[in-house]
């Protein structure tokens, strides 16, 4: 009931947002209410999350398909995602209170923001295909409008276009997928679909379409193309939600279909998903390393993390498909854990990016630098976020990757040769992605927040409003907590996976709190808690020893830099130069990355230039290709518009004669 109230409140807020007009305080009020609503939903979700698995509370409204009212239900899975979603939305709303006054046209954001929140939450609680898709499209629609918030920029319009078309593609895939599960007579409610038995081909198609549909929303390679375009285009607090949360809602859809509605997916699909996930992870992070636009970089890093999660999910399916329920549960827990984590640190980073843009007006890494000194709060928060997202202990990112690795190492125990040989490869991909992610965020943080300012704007950066600082600080705190007490989280998650895998399971089975021992204590274990305490202890001891034996004197001086005396900040490493070694090693083949030096002749005093050319194979090959085909056919078809009446009559005549012939033939049979 509380949840229903909060949701309807969100709808009302949209109207209020329209009415907000020019006064900024009204906009602030809307965001404040959004935050309260999100917190309510968060509470509602959390309250149900703890409860024992089973069919949760349901509501039936007399809307939707006439012969089948709209069903809503909150079970454990929905509850978990509701927590994930509304944690981020609460943060983003709070952030918006301060941020909305810095937007070019707040009136194009405030009304749609609550709708976006509503859409995402509605997807989670929908209990029939129609409502699910309505909410799903509603989510796309509202976010599309948010992407168009800064509509005067042609790039944004292009991004919005690609986004909406891809969203429609995804919806059609899901739509047909549901249609297949519902059957010709249209039994669209989820319980009916669970009951339905799918034959081989139908089962195959369902999984395929679910992957295409949810995958295109989540940003699986090669369906990711819209994501790095659309996410940066939106205002930062919206980008945070699109990247940090909306992709998770897509994954929710995937889990809902593959683990719940379809139920018994063959293990081979798991293997396929793992490969897709691995490719997505590596490609995503490679893209990210090449980006100079901070928000694009973050968007691509989202692609990478989605890939990581999908590896976990695929593993779970492979285990479940071969009857290894406990391991399936483990892999699923790992995947869900990573979902939770990513939603937090990606939101954190996008909000920090928003703060950077607010403070400097720049998104280009090449124009930033030294912000850690001028914006200490965001400096610290972003650093924590960077460590977490690079999967380094003792923060949360590492825990989930550790769990995924642990379950991955169990993969070869399956009887299928494909798994025995495939899993190590996927493992290598995952490891590669993790290491590259670290490189990517050293680059991002080091260039944006450290070093000397590369532009006047960066040099004059100022603190951002309090609400924008507190939210990031809060999220950073969460990163630490989720890393320090992993067992508490995994126990909560095991409630969720029990109904999906049909096995009671706890990650900390035989060592108990605070030890994560996935399979058995001798199988390799991890305790963030102990590690944090010991590590902190050792650092303190080091500090004491050093200060005990040595001096504590510090002298400020110019940088030594091997004796080069220079004061031009441009001599620092830029994003591109930092990426160069990685580009040469990894991107030469995949992205056909080429460098060409333009060296002026002696006496010519124009500066030398180093040009880098990178080709996105997927965009050029797939999307541009489709565009070309459509254009070509459209040109052909368009000629029909310019014929004479006589020719149109000819077409008519032809149709008639053709049909008569058809009838003649069919009659003769």
């Amino acid at each position, binding site marked *: 009931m509380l949840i229903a109230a909060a949701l309807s409140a969100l709808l009302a807020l949209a109207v209020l947002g329209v009415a907000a007009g020019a006064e900024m305080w009204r906009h602030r009020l809307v965001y404040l209410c959004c935050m309260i609503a999100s917190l309510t939903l968060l509470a509602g979700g959390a309250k149900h999350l703890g409860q024992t698995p089973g069919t949760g509370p349901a509501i039936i409204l007399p809307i939707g398909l006439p012969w089948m009212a709209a069903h809503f239900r909150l079970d454990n899975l929905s509850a978990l995602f509701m927590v994930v979603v509304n944690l981020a939305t609460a943060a983003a709303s709070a952030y918006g209170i301060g941020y909305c006054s810095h937007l070019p046209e707040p009136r194009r954001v405030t009304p749609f923001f609550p709708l976006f929140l509503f859409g995402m939450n509605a997807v989670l609680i929908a209990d029939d295909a129609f409502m699910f898709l309505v909410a799903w499209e509603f989510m796309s629609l509202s976010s599309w409008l948010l992407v168009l918030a800064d509509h005067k920029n042609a790039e944004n319009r292009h991004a919005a276009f690609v986004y909406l078309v891809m969203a429609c593609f995804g919806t059609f895939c899901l739509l047909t997928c549901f249609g297949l599960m519902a059957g010709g007579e249209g039994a669209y409610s989820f319980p009916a679909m669970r009951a339905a038995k799918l034959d081989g081909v139908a089962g195959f198609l369902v999984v395929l379409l679910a992957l295409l549909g949810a995958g295109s929303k989540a940003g699986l390679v090669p369906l990711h193309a819209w994501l790095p375009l659309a996410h940066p285009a939106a205002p930062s607090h919206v980008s945070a939600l699109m990247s940090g949360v909306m992709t998770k809602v897509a994954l929710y859809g995937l889990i809902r279909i593959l683990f719940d509605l379809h139920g018994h997916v063959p293990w081979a699909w798991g293997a396929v998903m793992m490969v897709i996930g691995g490719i997505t992870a590596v490609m995503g992070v490679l893209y990210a390393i090449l980006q100079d636009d901070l928000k694009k970089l973050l968007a691509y890093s989202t692609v990478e993390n989605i890939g990581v999660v999908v590896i976990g999910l695929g593993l779970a399916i492979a285990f479940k498909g071969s009857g290894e329920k406990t391991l399936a549960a483990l892999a699923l827990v790992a995947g869900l854990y990573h979902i939770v984590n990513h939603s937090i640190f990606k939101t954190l980073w996008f909000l920090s990016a928003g703060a950077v843009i607010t403070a400097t007006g720049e998104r280009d890494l090449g124009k930033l630098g030294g912000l850690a000194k001028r914006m200490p709060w965001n400096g610290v928060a972003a650093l924590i976020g960077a460590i977490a997202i690079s999967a380094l202990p003792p923060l949360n990112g590492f825990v989930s990757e550790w769990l995924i690795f642990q379950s991955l190492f169990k993969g070869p125990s399956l009887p299928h040769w494909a798994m025995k040989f495939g899993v190590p490869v996927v493992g290598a991909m995952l490891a590669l992605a993790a290491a590259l992610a670290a490189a990517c965020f050293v680059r991002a943080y080091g260039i944006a927040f450290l070093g000397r300012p590369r532009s006047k704007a960066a040099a004059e950066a100022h603190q951002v409003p309090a609400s924008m600082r507190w939210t990031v600080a809060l999220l950073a705190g969460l990163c630490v907590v989720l890393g320090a007490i992993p067992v508490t989280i995994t126990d909560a998650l095991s409630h969720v996976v029990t109904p999906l895998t049909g096995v009671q399971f706890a990650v900390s089975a035989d060592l108990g709190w605070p030890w994560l021992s996935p399979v058995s204590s001798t199988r390799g274990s991890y305790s963030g808690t102990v590690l944090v305490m010991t590590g902190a202890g050792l650092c303190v001891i080091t500090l004491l020893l050093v200060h005990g034996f040595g001096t504590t004197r510090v002298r400020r001086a110019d940088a030594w830099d091997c004796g080069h005396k220079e004061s031009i900040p441009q001599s620092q490493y830029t994003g591109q130069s930092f990426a160069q070694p990685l580009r040469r090693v990894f991107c030469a083949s995949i992205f056909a990355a080429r460098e060409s030096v333009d060296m002026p002749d002696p006496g010519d005093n124009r500066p030398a230039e180093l040009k880098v050319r990178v080709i996105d194979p997927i965009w050029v090959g797939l999307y541009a290709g489709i565009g070309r085909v459509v254009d070509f056919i459209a040109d052909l078809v368009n000629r029909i*518009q*310019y*014929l*004479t*009446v*006589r*020719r149109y*009559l*000819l077409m*008519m*005549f032809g149709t*008639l*004669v053709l049909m*008569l*012939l058809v*009838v*003649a033939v069919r*009659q*003769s049979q």
Partner: protein
Amino acid sequence: MGAQTSYDIAHLIGATVLMAGFSLLYQRRLFAVLNTFAFQALALAAAAAWQAHIQHAPHLYVTAGIALIFKAIIVPIALHWLVEQLGIHKNVETAMSIGWTMMAGVALVTLSILLVLPVTANATALTRESLALAMSVVLLGLLMMITRRNAVTQVVGFMALENGLILAAVSAKGMPLVVEISVAFSVLVAMTLFGIFFFRIRERFDTLELADLETHRGDRQ
């Protein structure tokens, strides 16, 4: 006289209408086309009258009258007048050579017979035969519309098509008056509209060549 003879006569007249349709395709000169059309209308009137006689359906005489007066007399004369007025040059521009057109016509007739004969096994022979004939006439009229470039010939083609329709209608036993009304109605309106159109077209394009008429063709980029 026996039913057999009445059938034969009906078919004879129907066949005449069809033949007229063929010769419409065959004509190379505009006035000849008009005359042939007048002849076809005449034959149609005869068919209608004959049907009225053997079906004992007096209202069909009305149809016959309409066909006779409007189609056989007024329309051809009006078209003659138009051609003179607008100084359209007198021979027919074909989009497809006469020979091919005739062959296509034959093919269409075969098709319609092929379609109709198996159909009305239990319907009266009368209906069946004239249905085949009527359908052929309709198709021939359409064929004429698409193989002739000139507006007048297209109008004639359209009229021929309608002749086919009426032939079908009259030979459908006991089909209510509503059909004749509608036909007369449509012919009438068609005429007036064509009149208005030619008037406007003359105003604006001073030609009747469709090719000129469609220079714009909508939505040129």
